[in-house]
């Protein structure tokens, strides 16, 4: 009930949880953020202790007292240990690869134990979707959790609040903490399978003459550009250079020529006029995929956006990103 209430009032939640999302960089679960309450088993354990105590008093059992008190002390120590299992855990979010709407975004959470002891059985649970995973963080080591969060609609999908919970070692107490790392995943529109539009005739004619950059035959080196695939970087040339800290401007990219394909414009205006925006974007996304598969040179035209024809992984990504973010309010720039 309280959880639902807090979900509806994020400001109260932020005040209570002691942080304002999203949190950049490495989040350390300081003590103030680790909560602990007895679990249901804890109450049953308490009841057992009461029975043991009454029995010890009634039968004047010194060792009964000793047992009862040892167990009580163990419960107390267990409480500290349960809180300790989360305390000062360092959480950071890794990069989430873009996905299509309808798939699951794979958010990586990096849990750094930062302790001489191991931290077993930590549950990471994505609050909004319920995606969850139990992980053991080894002593002075780290662990990674991948939370599969369903991506329903295109655009940036922020990770949102993640609960970390543990009941180790005795299961008598439940300790938890919330984090909301600054992580987001780009969600492309859901691609619609549709036949490609016909390529324009003049583009087809032009394709015959000039070599079109492709993937097939090595044709030479050129300066590295940020959008180039790492597969095409001339690593041997990099290794030969003396500087250990190579700047990107010193790197070279291998150039290939592909088979001359038709030049294809995937144009917003080719779609039926009555079609809804999301439907158009889905269709266009499907075209981008089909064009990439077909080995064509394709460009993308949206109202206010034009991407020159090209091919390859990064070109495809740029097109899909344009579709994903089309007509969405710009969000705060973060590490994408």
């Amino acid at each position, binding site marked *: 009930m309280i*959880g639902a209430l807090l979900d509806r009032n994020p400001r109260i939640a932020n005040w209570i949880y002691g942080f304002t999302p999203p949190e950049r*960089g490495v989040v350390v679960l300081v*003590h103030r953020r680790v909560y602990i309450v007895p*679990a249901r*088993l804890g109450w*049953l354990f308490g009841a*057992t202790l009461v*029975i*043991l105590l*009454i*029995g*010890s*008093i*009634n*039968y*004047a*059992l*010194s*060792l*009964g*007292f*000793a*047992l*009862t*008190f*040892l*167990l*009580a*002390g*163990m419960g*107390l*120590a*267990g409480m*500290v*240990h349960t*809180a*300790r299992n989360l*305390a*000062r855990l360092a959480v950071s979010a890794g990069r989430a690869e873009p996905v299509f709407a309808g798939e699951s975004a794979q958010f990586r959470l990096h849990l750094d134990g*930062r*302790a*001489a*002891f*191991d931290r*077993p*059985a930590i*549950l990471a649970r994505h*609050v909004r979707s*319920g995606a*969850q995973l*139990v992980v*053991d963080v080894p002593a*002075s080591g780290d662990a990674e959790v991948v939370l599969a969060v369903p991506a329903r609609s295109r655009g940036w999908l922020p990770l949102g609040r993640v609960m970390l919970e543990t*009941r*180790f*070692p*005795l*299961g008598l107490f*439940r300790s938890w903490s919330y984090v909301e790392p600054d992580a987001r995943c780009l969600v492309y529109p859901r691609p619609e399978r549709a036949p490609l539009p016909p390529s324009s005739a003049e583009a087809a004619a032009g394709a015959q003459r000039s070599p079109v950059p492709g993937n097939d035959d090595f044709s030479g080196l050129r300066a590295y550009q940020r959008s180039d695939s790492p597969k095409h970087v001339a690593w041997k040339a990099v290794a030969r250079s003396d500087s250990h*800290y190579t700047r990107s401007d010193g790197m070279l990219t291998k150039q290939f020529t592909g088979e001359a394909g038709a030049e294809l414009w995937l144009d917003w205006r080719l779609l039926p006029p009555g079609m809804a925006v999301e439907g158009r974007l889905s269709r266009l996304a499907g075209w981008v995929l089909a064009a990439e598969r077909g080995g064509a040179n394709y460009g993308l035209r949206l109202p206010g956006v034009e991407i020159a024809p090209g091919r390859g992984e990064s070109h495809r990504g740029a097109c899909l990103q344009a579709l994903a973010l089309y007509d969405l309010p710009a969000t705060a720039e973060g590490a994408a």
Partner: protein
Amino acid sequence: MTASPHPLAPELRLVSMRDLVWLVGSLLLVIAPHALRAPWWLPLLTLCLFAWRFQYALTRAPLPSRWLVLGVALVGMLGVWLEYRTLFGRQPGIVLLTLFAGLKLLETRSHRDAALAAFLGYFLIITNFLYTQSIPTAALMGVALFALTTTLIGFSAPQRAPRANARTAALLLAHAAPAALVLFLLFPRVQGPLWGLPQDAYTGMTGLSETMSPGNLSSLAQSDAIAFRAEFESDLPPPALRYWRGPVLWDFDGRTWSIGPGSLVNFAPPRGGRATYRYAVVLEPHNRHWLFALETAATVPERARMRFDGQLIALQPVRARMRYEMTSVVSPEPDAEAVSALRRALRLPRDYNPRATALAEQWRAQSSGDEDLLLRAIDFLKAGGYTYTLEPPLLGAHSVDEFLFSTKAGFCEHFASAFAFLMRAAGLPARVVTGYQGGELNPIDRVFTVRQSEAHAWTEVYLRNRGWVRVDPTGVAVPGRIESGLARAVPVGDPLPLLMQSRLEWLRGARYQWEALVHKWNLLVLGYNPERQRDLMSYVGMRDADWRTLTAALFSVLGVLTLVLLAWSLNRLVRPDPVQRAWAAFTRKLAARGVARAPHEGPRDYATRAARALPGAGWPILRIGALYIHLRYGRRNGGRGVAQLRRRVRELRLA
């Protein structure tokens, strides 16, 4: 919120084979001592239930239905009822609990059920203490506690190695120990019981009884169990004076002597006496009222009274080990005895033991006075050729006659009974006193131990000017019994209690050590009761500490302990990397000179920028940067690089 199942919720996590093995193993540890006390079918049935559960785990079959489990429970309850004719009481209750532990396993699917079974295991530990709280039991139960805790931790961390879980259990118990000690000492103790205990709560305690008939002392004498211990302030009484007075038996029905009714008197300390002994007695529980003291008691312990015949009576039955201070004197001046008591000390049943009666009457006719009569009787016993045995022959209706004239072999109860009978028949008031004679000094801790095997019976005879005089007919007939103890007095070949056997001499040293330890254990651990708690509190300066003071003290100490534990655990967390720490010192130094590191800045860029900004120290700054990068991102360079980095940061001078 979506309602996906919670992976840490114990009710949703299924018990694995490993969990089951640990759970059953630790439960077996707890139940094992009960198997020796319970009816034979209980361990069998429990083992069957465990094996049955394992079969389900191996075949992965669904667990038996509730009805089947209920049926087994009913069969078990029927068995208990057939055995004990009741379902309540200590022993039946424990048998039922043991069965329920097996049945609980049969319906254990999830970790929640398994954890409840472990809690039941914790509870079963305490049932062992109802029978014995000895050091071995405590040790075994400590192991069981450890195993149960490891099991419980295994439920929370199923992926973890059992060895790691065991280490965690040890750590938890070690962390619990200080809190447990504080609770043990400061938790306000209440004198139990809170309500009536079951009828059989105190069975199984050995000791003397209200009656004495042929055979019951000799069976007690086969027991090595300790009756009580005494710590003397200075010297021990010589062996001939080591008579520990217990129940005084007045009434004889031809076979059995019994205490009979008697009134408590206002105690008046005896006058005179040859020697005084001060000592403390630690009496083992025997579930009776009487206390033991060296003859003749000159004080009465707290919460005890004295009967008219000099027997110490506690106001409550002694159901827990009890410690009391005593003073005794030897041969004080006699007190006059009431006429009614003397008349009672002459009473005999009619038509029993005609030969003994005739003999006594003959003595009376021949002797000049009471003392002369007594001497004749003593001479008769000395010359009679009686033997002392732990296995006396069975006697018929005229037990005294048979013993005196035909079997001529008996244990102290036979001698005492026969002698008191003879005296009464001769018109001299006599009574039988039971108690212990002897004892053994432990050279390790100077504690004097008296065992059940030293149970003894003697007589007291009333002489007009000397009052009640102790006459030990056993000592008269078999003098070795009093001077050198039971072992020398019985003929070779008679069975003896194990510890009295002389060929086990080598065991003695170890035994003395052990018993000294046990005595400490009894006093310090088991004997810690409300009075001891009060003593302790006044020792630390809290006079008249009531439960409020205790609770306040308890919670403050517990709070401090928890904080210490918390600080410890956090301290274990803050283990900053030494490289990181040196780097932080470096950035602080540079920041003080106005070159703070920007959050996005890597070490190389930062060092380069700082070297440019502070050209005076440019080279050392760059070297520190390079070394840091090497230590942090290169292959590990061991401790030397770290020390070097630290030294360089320390020696960095920024002009």
